[in-house]
């Protein structure tokens, strides 16, 4: 069915280290994936997306990796900064459904 979940609900990293946030999805028909960042008291903010015909996409300090074989998505944040503290959600679109399904989220905390 359409379900997206995350391996870890919380992640703590040292400032300056790289962060890796993981996501597992269950629907092999999903063709588009997005990472969102949600800061406390705010709505989700788009970070980066990737289509199913790609396995890697890079943005500014962020990289998304897609492994369709094991239905796994990850978000890598380079040189994590205090401003990266937030809850990160992966979301998937099932081809033809035109509906974005969000995962549960991972809370990223930065240790000084």
């Amino acid at each position: 069915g359409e379900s997206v979940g995350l391996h870890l609900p919380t992640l703590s990293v040292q400032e300056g280290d790289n962060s890796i946030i993981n996501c597992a999805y269950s629907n092999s028909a999903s063709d588009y994936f997005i990472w969102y960042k949600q800061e406390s008291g705010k709505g989700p903010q788009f970070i980066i997306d990737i289509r199913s015909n790609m396995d890697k996409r890079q943005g500014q300090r962020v990289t998304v990796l897609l492994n369709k074989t094991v239905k796994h998505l990850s978000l890598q944040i380079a040189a994590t900064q205090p401003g990266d503290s937030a809850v990160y959600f992966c979301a998937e679109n099932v081809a033809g459904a035109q509906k974005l399904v969000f995962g549960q989220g991972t809370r990223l905390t930065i240790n000084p």
Partner: protein
Amino acid sequence: EAEVAQSPRYKITEKSQAVAFWCDPISGHATLYWYRQILGQGPELLVQFQDESVVDDSQLPKDRFSAERLKGVDSTLKIQPAELGDSAMYLCACSSGRYTGELFFGEGSRLTVL
């Protein structure tokens, strides 16, 4: 930068009362979404509009929830009567096309039902 406006930011009500949330999307964004986000969980789609038409309301509890976007611009989500389990953040989002992954979210309306 254009933003999605939502009001009220916070609403406290007693169960069985009626509540309404308003959303004004980014100008020109034809697709509008209402999501519900329970604390600690990801947003869940309640209803999707394309202009003034409902595209998907399969997850909207229609016995108590209603949504409209009469002129294809701003939108209202209503709950009547409110139940304790409706306590959540109600998020409005929009996108410029029929569907794009880049949804622009408002700050949300946090509902507490007592």
